[in-house]
């Protein structure tokens, strides 16, 4: 178990290259249990890449990732998931031809008991039952649980992806723009859920371009620019202007001091 002050998930000097593109150039990241951390940055700053490294999708070219204080090297997303780290991907990663329950349990299907289960027969009734509960928690009403996910609205699809992560995570959830396609009501529900999940002691890492949303829901904000962390701020005493300034670098002091004075993280 992690003691309260200790980070649950930490990245130190992570480097990731795609050919000539250096998406992460020594990025740091810190997240504590029970905390909502917003990860912000301009388009192309490296947010998705960092999340992919931290969730086991990509192997870093350099630096290290620590989970509960111990260095980890996830062999893949399923390895991360086994260790309680779930992700809501920007592209949602759903199978559009399958129904919501099948997507919720993709790769973790519930089987019947006894011989049928041994033969791999699914317990669809149980999966649907659980799915109804999981979606209800997000305030999602699915008229027809047997309809393929492709026939759902964008917001409902996003809710399916969020519900899947929330249902299984017990340490960290990454959400790459989880509210991007949502209407006002569903957006509020997802943010409500984010808080509720964090209160369970799970760490929620939220990527978002919506600054008011970031300030209202998160405890801390980490700012990424050009593949590096340039600021780590407490939401309570930060303004939108400061966030934008850190993201764009306009608040940077000129010449040889690259980060602004209030930034506790000084990229070398």
């Amino acid at each position: 178990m992690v003691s309260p002050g200790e980070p649950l998930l930490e990245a130190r000097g992570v480097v990731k290259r795609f050919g000539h593109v250096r998406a992460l150039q020594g990025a740091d990241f810190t997240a504590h249990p029970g905390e909502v951390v917003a990860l912000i940055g301009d388009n192309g700053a490296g947010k998705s890449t960092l999340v992919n490294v931290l969730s086991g999708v990509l192997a870093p070219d350099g630096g290290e990732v620590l989970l509960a204080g111990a260095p980890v090297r996830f062999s893949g997303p399923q390895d991360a998931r086994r260790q309680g780290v779930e992700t809501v991907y920007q592209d949602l990663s759903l199978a559009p031809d399958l129904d919501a329950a099948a997507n919720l349990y993709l790769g973790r299907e519930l089987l019947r008991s006894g011989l049928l289960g041994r033969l791999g027969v699914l317990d669809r009734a149980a999966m649907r039952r659980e799915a109804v509960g999981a979606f209800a928690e997000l305030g999602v009403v699915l008229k027809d649980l047997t309809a393929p996910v492709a026939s759902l609205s964008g917001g409902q699809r996003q809710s399916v992806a969020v519900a899947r992560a929330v249902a299984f995570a017990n340490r960290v959830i990454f959400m790459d723009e989880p509210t991007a396609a949502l209407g006002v009501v569903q957006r509020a529900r997802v943010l409500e859920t984010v808080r509720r999940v964090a209160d369970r002691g799970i760490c929620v890492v939220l990527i978002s371009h919506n600054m008011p949303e970031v300030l209202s829901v998160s405890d801390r904000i980490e700012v990424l620019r050009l593949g590096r962390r340039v600021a780590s701020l407490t939401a309570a005493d930060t303004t939108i202007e400061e966030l934008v300034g850190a993201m764009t670098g306009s608040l940077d002091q000129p010449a040889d001091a690259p980060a602004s004075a209030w930034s506790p993280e000084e990229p070398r």
Partner: protein
Amino acid sequence: MTAGTGPLADVTSDSVPQWLRRAAGVNELWTFVILVALVVFFSIAAPDKFFTVFDLTQIAVNAAIYLVLGVGMTYVVITAGIDLSIGSVLVLAAVAAAEYNIHHGGATAGWATVAVCVLIALAVGTGWGALQGAIVATGKVPPLIVTLGGLGAALGLAELATGGQDPAGAAAADLQNSLGYGKVLGIPWLVVLAAVVTVAFGLVLGTTRFGTHTLAIGSNPAAVRRAGIGVGGHLVKVYALMGLLAGLGAVMWLASYGTTSIAGHSTDNLKVITAVVLGGTSLFGGRGSVLGTVIGVFIPAVLNTGLIVIGVQQYWQDVAVGVVLVAAVYVDQLRRRARERS
């Protein structure tokens, strides 16, 4: 807590119109309507002759092998793949079994030999399928090309082994008299076997984890990979299943015709893929059913008999099936695009 109220009730409240709307959208339903319409049309067009010539048992016997192949092809197509090699794999498996049979008693070989021959045919088919699946799973060569190469290579090997001539004594009389011509409760063994295979793998596709993963891979392989499912391994299994069923098809062929028919299987792939697509399985993957394939196998069979009965040249069957096939894919494509726009 407000979040938990309401939704539970809403899920089931207006399920009846949903059910109706969905039934209308089910592919198999439309294909089944076409099949029934054909039967009705032919029985009206030739009321006295159709049902006498339209011997369901005979049609089922003719369709049995295509049905077995079609079941495997349904799985392959659902993964957004294709297997062009099935006819050649069937021939190669038949030749391998035949060679063993010839050297172990020929037409008068005993049951032990028959059993070994069956195992050889199944093993050759499964092995060939698994090999193709492994190449497909690398993601470096598209299934169309892998299995087109497999089509040529398997047939070539079969011809090398036999010098291109169908060998005499390919099947034991015991095999032919049992599986080939035998009946149980008046139903030919071939039909029983095909029905068992169809029901079993229909259930596997519809109710098991293996089936769900097959559909999911065709729907979004990246998502499946992220969900921790071994996509490559699953593809190997699916193509191996196709090979296994081609091997079974070889056994059925030997049993009913007693010869390897090396030159007689070059259009099996087209017939089977047509049946699968007619049955509503999407060539783009992610959607399909074994039930649909059953209907898809019987449409050409009924057309064939029907056209003979009403005195139309049966070559029209090929024309009709071709047109329907293109139309089926066109509709599938339209539906997919409509869905993506929503």
